[in-house]
């Protein structure tokens, strides 16, 4: 995948995981990123086909695990940890909010 995309993007794309700012992972890390992507796509499919709302949430949890793993693998810098944790805690908090609202709100 090289060359600029229809002349719209000014930089050269060497792989799906790189831009002018993010260096493409090489070798083993790229295989691991593809494993995480496969698991993310599988869990997104299970979220769509599951009819019960409460039982969608564990699949959504698997999805956020794989996405935060991909974030940390693509940004191997100290700020990458903060990005991965922020994404994960945010998505967990959303699942928590959805589940608690669906169950009837917080009890005191």
């Amino acid at each position, binding site marked *: 995948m090289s060359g600029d995309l229809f002349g719209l993007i000014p930089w050269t794309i060497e792989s799906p995981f790189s831009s002018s700012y993010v260096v493409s992972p090489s070798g083993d890390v790229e295989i691991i990123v593809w494993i995480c992507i496969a698991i993310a796509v599988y869990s997104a499919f299970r979220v769509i086909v599951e009819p019960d709302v*409460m039982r969608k949430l564990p699949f959504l949890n698997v999805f956020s*695990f794989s996405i935060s793993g991909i974030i940390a693998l693509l940004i191997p810098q100290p700020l990458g*940890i903060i990005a991965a*944790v922020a994404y994960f805690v945010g998505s967990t908090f959303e699942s928590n909010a959805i589940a608690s609202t669906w169950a009837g709100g917080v009890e005191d």
Partner: protein
Amino acid sequence: MTMLFLQIAFAALCCWFLFITVDMICGLPRNGGVCGATAIAKAIEKGGGNINGGTMMGNIVSSPDASAGTLLAACGVYCFGIPGGLIATILVYIGNRICYDPGYAGTTGCFIATFMVYGGTLIGIPAECFIAGMVIAILTIQGISHRNSSKLLGWIWRLFR
């Protein structure tokens, strides 16, 4: 290539046993931390699962627990070594408080997993294998069959109790 998959499989086994052990010791299957966790447990029980295993799965969804701690510790060690794992531990502690969870399963799991992942890098298993291993480990619990995995978790909980 085969070596990489063996490393990932070994890392997945280590992560699986670590997060199940820490969660069981912290008593996650006993009761739901928030009412959403109890609701997920009831939905899983209605689908033919075990109530204790379902409660643990609901708690994993509702707040960062030892499985999230293991993943984020692996991310931290991959990016920044042991200091990265300790940064992740502090952030998981803050995340636990944000998610209205009084427990310490996530913080404990993240702290132990930091040293487990660092030990793995010393014996030739890189930290990125632990990231893939933890994603596969959570897939076996939360992502394949809720009925069977909740029964397995309920069986392990009876052994611990």
